[in-house]
């Protein structure tokens, strides 16, 4: 199964999760997602997702001047973002354990 299809549903949660402990700028967030194992995540998807999460009022942004190249726009979780991360995280864990149990029952190899 193509991971990209799965990723579409949970990219919001993944972006919120990598911002949990530390704010980051766009490329930095992309790198964190890839380091975490989400190799197939598209650059444009991450930026689009960041924009949508910001529009939904879940993220703060601020601009940090950089010596080399253009200024960097940092994203961070606000209170609503943390709240959303906790709720969506619980939903995902429930869903994932349900799927695990279903596959175990049918004897599908892990």
């Amino acid at each position, binding site marked *: 199964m193509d991971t990209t299809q799965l990723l579409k549903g949970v*990219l919001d949660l993944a972006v919120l999760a990598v911002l949990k402990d530390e704010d980051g*700028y*766009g*490329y930095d967030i992309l790198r964190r997602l890839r380091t975490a194992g989400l190799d197939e995540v*598209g*650059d*444009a*998807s*991450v*930026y*689009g*997702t*960041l*924009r*949508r999460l910001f*529009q939904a*009022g879940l993220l*703060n*942004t601020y601009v940090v001047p950089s010596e080399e*190249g*253009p*200024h*960097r*726009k940092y994203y961070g979780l*606000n209170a609503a973002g943390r709240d959303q991360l906790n709720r969506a995280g619980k939903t995902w864990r429930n869903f994932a354990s349900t799927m695990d149990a279903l596959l175990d029952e049918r004897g599908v190899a892990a």
Partner: protein
Amino acid sequence: MNVATEQDEYLDGVRRALADLDPATRDELLEDLPEHLTEVAAEGEGTLVERLGPPEAYAAEMRAAAGLGVARTTARGIDDRVAAGVRRLRGALGVADRKAGPVLGYGRASEFLRMLLPAWWVLRGYLVAMAITVLTTGSGFGLLPRLGGSTLAAVLVLAVCVLASIWLGRREAGLRPVWRAGIALGGLFLFVFGLVGFDKADDHGTVWFDQTQTVSVNQYEYVRDVYVYDQYGNPLTNVRLFDQDGNPIQIGDPYRCLSFDDYKAKVEAIGETYPYCPQRPPYLVAPQPGVVAPPDRGEPIVVSPTPTEPTDTPASPEPTGTPEPTPTN
């Protein structure tokens, strides 16, 4: 190919593919792209198109992830135009939201306003109690909703309305859109009602303040002496003043021209009379025909009897200084 040119070309390609979006949204989406392209270019070999795919695909992916729907290239109908207008309005509100936030000390103005929601619920309850009182009893807008004139009833009505408003406020988010629109409309009505009511209450306060101001002023405080003139403009001396009850009127400064002892002697001889300083007329009244005007300002005034002057006037003028005939030439 030049690195900067390649990045600019890619950026232009993405921008063209997003041309149907309103400018604010498009700029927002593209804000991070130059920096990102720089990073990708610095990362390794290969052109941007090889690494990221064609700009159109990049734009489509970003658009999909941002929840903005697919590109529309066909002619736009009225629905689309309305939708675009709403989107643009939302974009403008979003920008205002973010611009106003730092002024208030928050990331977004809406974050701050959201915290004020419970305060609005309490105010809304208060205004409902006030509206019930004004509409049922027709009384004015005061500080307490005095239903039936009882303070206890007022406090009870207030408590019930405020608690109900808070209860409703906490459940508003889960209600159907129709109900929420109704509540918003009611809130707007209460807001206007409150503004009008408080404005009226304020007016009452101002009128009351003005009345007390007028009462406290003594408009004769500055008077130090009293000069009386007859109908021809001749100054009268040794005039006595009485009020409607026959009590002598004492105003001014009795020691203006006389020492304490001289004044005492004068009061014992002829009583309290005005002016205190007959030798110093403060001004001249326009002389009438047949009346001799004072020869010079500052000098004792000599009054000559004239044929038209009534002789039986009680306060007939008496020359106070040495009688001196007016020089005639």
